[in-house]
């Protein structure tokens, strides 16, 4: 017996069986694990109040709610500008007050998408021939990102977009690899869904179509390329077709979403006038700002190694050149965001570079699934030093999580993506909850107040309530017991409409807050006030 050594003899078979079982069921295990992480994460952010910090999250929830409840419920409340799929998905649940006010109606799709995206990352790496360690590492890079964990816990559109875009690229790459037409159809389906979530999906559609044409033209000539292009785009662009049709039918202008008064174009025009749209026509600055946003969302370590991983992938002769080219679609979000910033269609503030605040910095997170795939690939290919790279990653992520390093949370807490409307909404909650009467308010400007007041949607007269809005802005004293607006601000549609009526003299300003003022109808006019929705049902 050697006393300087401890020897343990382990039977091989149980471990081999266990490892084989894990390998066979790895995807299911990933799904279960991510589902648990998702729920824990949601509960954490719900409890600390960050679940509803994003102004846009509250607006998304309100849009979904207005479809099912309000003075003019209906699909038309889906509105324009923001693409409709996230709100449509909320409809089955958002009728429930808890699901609405907890944000769960919107967060559920983010959570489901989070789990699904993790699975797609795993499958993508498996398709590229990456071993178990690399696949799992790719998923780890995705879920151990505080920004992803936060975005998956809230009613925003990011995770749904991540899922549909990544799934689309996955199926497209599969088609390049296997030539299976069903994979191409599935790719078109997922891309089509992404076109109904955010405009990033529209760029992805064009990029994927370009890849398909290039691939088939090279392989089979022009006619075949034309055929595949039509096949892909018929399904892929169906969502865009529906959206244009929707805008034409509801707003009488197919491009209302692009050029209407609430469009990003209109918003950006105002910012340009104010001199803060610095990325417009400045390619270098657009590139710099987006790079910073991407790095801040994923850490410099992950970004740099992912770039190395991408290069390794694209030059790996073991993989079919067509497949390698198809994976370039994973960089579509990067190209789209820079293009959007350059053209002035998007605005992104990174603190310290474009002023002293954050805004839309979450756009940098759209590359995270792609970075995770590239990193998983790199870990698989680098046999020597693999453990070192993983250990360094662990070091970086430990401190990232321990230090609460999440720019999306900073944007939600203190950046321009949040609005602390608690004073206004608190006032309404206290003074209007137990009183009768409608509240006249612009949803375009004050959706956060509507949400945070926790009053039923049918208490509010806003732009989307049709004849109620028309009546209330013409004769507010007959319809609005309270008016919430930013006085002297023509961007506030309520103020813009009310000021020409000269009816404000019938109101008393009962509260003045930084975000908005609250006016209440004087008591002598209460007898003629309508407190019930008496107008005929509107189409």
């Amino acid at each position: 017996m050697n006393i300087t050594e401890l020897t343990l003899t382990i039977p091989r078979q149980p471990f081999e069986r266990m490892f084989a079982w894990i390998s066979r069921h790895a995807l299911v295990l990933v799904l279960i694990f991510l589902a648990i992480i998702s729920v824990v994460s949601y509960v954490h952010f719900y409890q600390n109040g960050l679940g509803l910090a994003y102004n846009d999250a509250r607006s998304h929830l309100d849009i979904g709610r207005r479809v099912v409840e309000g003075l003019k419920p209906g699909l038309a409340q889906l509105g324009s500008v923001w693409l409709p799929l996230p709100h449509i998905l909320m409809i089955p649940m958002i009728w429930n007050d808890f699901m609405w006010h907890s944000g769960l109606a919107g967060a559920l799709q983010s959570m489901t998408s989070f789990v699904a995206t993790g699975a797609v990352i795993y499958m993508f790496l498996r398709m590229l021939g990456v071993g178990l360690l690399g696949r799992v590492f790719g998923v780890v890079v995705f879920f151990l990102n505080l920004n992803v964990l936060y975005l998956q816990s809230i009613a925003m559109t990011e995770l749904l977009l991540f899922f549909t875009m990544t799934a689309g690229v996955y199926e497209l790459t599969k088609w390049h690899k296997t030539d299976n037409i069903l994979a191409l159809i599935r790719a078109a389906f997922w891309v089509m869904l992404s076109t109904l979530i955010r405009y990033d999906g529209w760029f992805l559609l064009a990029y994927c179509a370009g890849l398909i044409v290039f691939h088939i033209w090279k392989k089979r000539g022009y006619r075949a390329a034309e055929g595949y292009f039509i096949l892909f785009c018929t399904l892929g662009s169906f969502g865009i077709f529906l959206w244009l049709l929707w805008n034409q039918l509801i707003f009488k202008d197919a491009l209302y979403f692009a050029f209407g008064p609430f469009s990003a174009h209109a918003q950006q025009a105002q910012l340009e006038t104010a001199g803060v749209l610095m990325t417009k026509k400045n390619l270098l600055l657009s590139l710099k700002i987006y790079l910073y946003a991407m790095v801040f969302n994923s850490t410099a370590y992950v970004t740099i190694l992912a770039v190395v991983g991408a290069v390794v992938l694209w030059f790996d002769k073991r993989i079919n050149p067509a497949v390698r080219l198809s994976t370039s679609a994973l960089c579509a979000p990067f190209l789209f965001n820079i293009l959007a910033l350059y053209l002035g269609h998007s605005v992104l503030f990174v603190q310290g570079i474009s002023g002293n605040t954050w805004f839309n910095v979450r756009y940098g997170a759209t590359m995270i699934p792609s970075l995770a795939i590239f990193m998983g690939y790199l870990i698989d290919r680098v046999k020597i030093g693999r453990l070192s790279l993983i250990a360094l990653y662990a070091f970086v992520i430990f401190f990232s999580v321990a230090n609460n390093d999440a720019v999306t949370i900073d944007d939600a807490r203190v950046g321009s993506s949040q609005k602390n409307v608690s004073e206004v909404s608190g006032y309404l909650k206290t003074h209007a909850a137990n009183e009768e009467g409608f509240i006249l308010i612009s949803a375009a400007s004050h959706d956060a107040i509507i949400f945070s007041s926790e009053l039923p949607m049918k208490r509010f007269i806003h732009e989307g309530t049709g004849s109620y809005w028309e009546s209330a802005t013409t004769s507010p004293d007959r319809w609005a017991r309270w008016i919430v607006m930013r006085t002297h601000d023509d961007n506030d549609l309520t103020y813009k409409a009310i000021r020409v009526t000269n009816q404000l003299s019938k109101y008393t300003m009962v509260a003045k807050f930084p975000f908005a003022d609250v006016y209440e109808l004087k008591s002598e006019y209460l007898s003629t006030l309508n407190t019930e929705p008496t107008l005929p049902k509107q189409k």
Partner: protein
Amino acid sequence: MKRTLPLMAIGLILTALLAMPLKGDKLPDGSLAYQQTEDTRVPGPFESSGSSSRYALVEAIVKSGTFFFNDVQAGLAAPDLVQYNGKYFSIFTPGVSFAVLPFYLLGNLFGIPQLAAYGATTLVALVNLLLVVLIARRLGAGIIPSFISGFIFLFGTNALTYALTLTQHHWSMLVILLAILTLFKQPGLLRNLFLGLLYGAGLLIDIPNAFILLPLMVYAAGQHLAGIDEGRTVKIKLKLVLIFLLLGFIPLLGAFGWYNKQVTGSATRLAQFIGRSDYPPKPKTTTEKKPPDPYAPTLPFYSRNQLNGLYILLISNERGWLYYSPIVFIGMAGLFLAVKRKETEKIAVVILTMAGLTITMYSSFGDPWGGWSFGPRYLLPATALLSTGIGLAIERWKRSILFGLAFLTIAGYSIYVAAFGAFTTTQVPPKQEAEHLVTFIPYTYAYNQQLIDQNKTGSLVYNLWLNGRVPLTTVVMMYQGIGIVLVSIAYTLACRKRIFKKNDI
């Protein structure tokens, strides 16, 4: 005899080159400055509190038998000073001060305590040069390429500047390089004890060493585990001598805990956690305290700093390797070559991991500049580690004329820059501070060049014997020239196959 004479000559040249920029001055009465009084002028040995705080601790131990400072020592140590329970002590871990204590005592006998204490660091720098040579040899480089590795490490990077201070850098590098060299030995009782001891010493010298040495310790521990495939079973063997890694660590960890208990009252409360104090102390203001931000970073390494940190440390003209010592990148390339060789694959990975961890850590640090400093001082451990690869790069590409030209140009430039810091000061401000100074100071080595043009130097040899006789610019140029010529000769010799064979030691 054949080798002894050249080795002695090399030793003498190295000693002379190191002695030349040693910091000191003479007083009007002809005696040596800084030995009995603490003059913090720039350039000078007490120009930076990174050195003077450690020196103050040495003085406190010798003169007062305590770790606490009197008023003079507190003033010398500020702002690297802590005030706690009405007493002042150094914010730094005591390892460097303990290590130079014998040298201070010896120097005191001859009236040169400061010179002797600082000379200890210079001596360690020379040892580090030798260690780099030895490691380069073990990695597979020939004698002359290995010598070039060591020479460039010390004379072609900011390691030279910090060899003349009482900071933690060369002591940390000593521990790290010794640990790497020890790793080449097979696991055994003495080897493990020594590694454990080095880890403890590293912690005593500077807290980040505990992180930097971690990959090495993990690898060393992993060497005690072996799996033998016996068909139906797998035998896992664990060598119990592993325990000596821990046993070697415990004494110095205990010493560290004891020191902490003396100064802070608790073995686990570090001076750094209490925070800096000024001397004289600033009056307390009665401003309203803001509630703490629950999302503010609480730990020192913040990943959001990393992009900027990487830029500052690797590329920028403020502190970047590319600007101060680009030769390090050639060393990196050499180590990647070592990774491809089976015999050196694992150790090369360990070295690269430690270097990578150093870069990752300090790029995430709130102050990658290292305050007022010359070059990327926080990257000095990585500089030493990567320098071991220079010899391998030379071995691999010495037949390429293009490589030769590039190497000599880059090495020459690195030596040229290194000399500026050594002869003048480490006190180069970061850009963001320089721009707000009432009198502008350049934030690159341009500041050092300015001082040289003004004939201001911290070099004792120059101040004692050459000042007024030879312009400082001439002396520095000659110094740089000697370094560049030495490397060029060595490189030329390395390109001649028949002179020295590999692994001849």
